[in-house]
């Protein structure tokens, strides 16, 4: 009797593994920064190269840190959502311009609109690597203490925005800054 069951048990275990793997995005690298302080950033800003954007600029408000570039078609695709956020909410939108020429970046923002409160410039891609970015666009939710709470890889979509990002931002905005 027990012997007779062995193949079925093996089959059940395999099905278990397969169900677990179904629908999983195998390309997604989980961020090691979740619930840790945002990685170091200290770079000039696009609109005024004299102004340096640092981690201090992430403290005191809930921010969305979005890595984008003018050569990135997916960034263009998700851009209307950021425009919408800029109009409808008071979320601090930080758009890190990743490996882009200044002229290209400015031209792109002129064409598609500029929703960002600050645009740190990552011309070497070092900020991207420090933040564990492996493909633009990527968007981080950073709380008032400057701690990374969530990361969305790829184009931000309505589904993720409505179900995850906005409820999280709402909750984080109630938390004290200190």
């Amino acid at each position, binding site marked *: 009797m027990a012997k007779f069951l062995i193949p079925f048990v093996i089959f059940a275990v395999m099905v278990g593994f397969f169900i677990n793997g179904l629908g999983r995005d195998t390309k997604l*690298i989980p961020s*090691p920064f979740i619930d840790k302080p945002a990685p170091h950033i200290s770079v000039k800003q696009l609109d005024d190269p004299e102004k340096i954007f640092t981690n201090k600029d992430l403290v005191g408000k809930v921010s969305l840190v979005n890595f984008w570039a003018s050569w990135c078609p997916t960034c263009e695709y998700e851009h209307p959502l950021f425009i919408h956020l800029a109009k409808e909410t008071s979320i601090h939108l930080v758009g890190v311009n990743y490996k882009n020429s200044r002229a290209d970046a400015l031209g792109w923002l002129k064409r598609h609109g500029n929703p960002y409160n600050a645009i740190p410039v990552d011309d070497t*891609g070092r900020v991207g690597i420090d933040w564990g970015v*492996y*493909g633009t666009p990527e968007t981080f939710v950073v709380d008032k203490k400057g701690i990374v709470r969530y990361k969305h890889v790829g184009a931000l979509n309505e589904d993720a925005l409505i179900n995850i990002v906005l409820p999280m931002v709402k909750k984080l905005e109630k938390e004290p800054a200190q």
Partner: protein
Amino acid sequence: MRWFVFMCLTFSACFVQADVIDFKNKDHEYRYHLLTKELRCAKCQNQNLADSHAELAGDMRVIVLEMIESGKTNREIRDYMVARYGKFILYRPPVDSKTMLLWFAPLLLLLGVIGFVIKLVKQRQKDLKPSETTDDENEKLTELLQENNQKDAE
């Protein structure tokens, strides 16, 4: 003309250059190749840093080289990458609670199969061996043989 095209196609590969690096010494060169082979490109995820043509892989190779030249150890360089991209970045993941199954499942499977084969072989040997006869049976056999011999004699 055909020859010209042929030659162009054949030798064009010779002019394609990978990034040539001036290593300070043999040790740097060895470590650079070692690390770029075992670190995974986060962008094209089935390639290591050495093989990948992704821009990100190029940037990461530059960091590896910079860190080697600034005297960082292999461990420090691996840790640097793991801190940013997680253990995902290592083609040779460390043994810990999460990777235990990954590391030891093949060994367990092998042991299981060896055990199974040993059991199978023993069973076979048992089946093939002629069974031992008891004393009673021996007596009966001799009797039968004797009867048979007598019959033959008659």
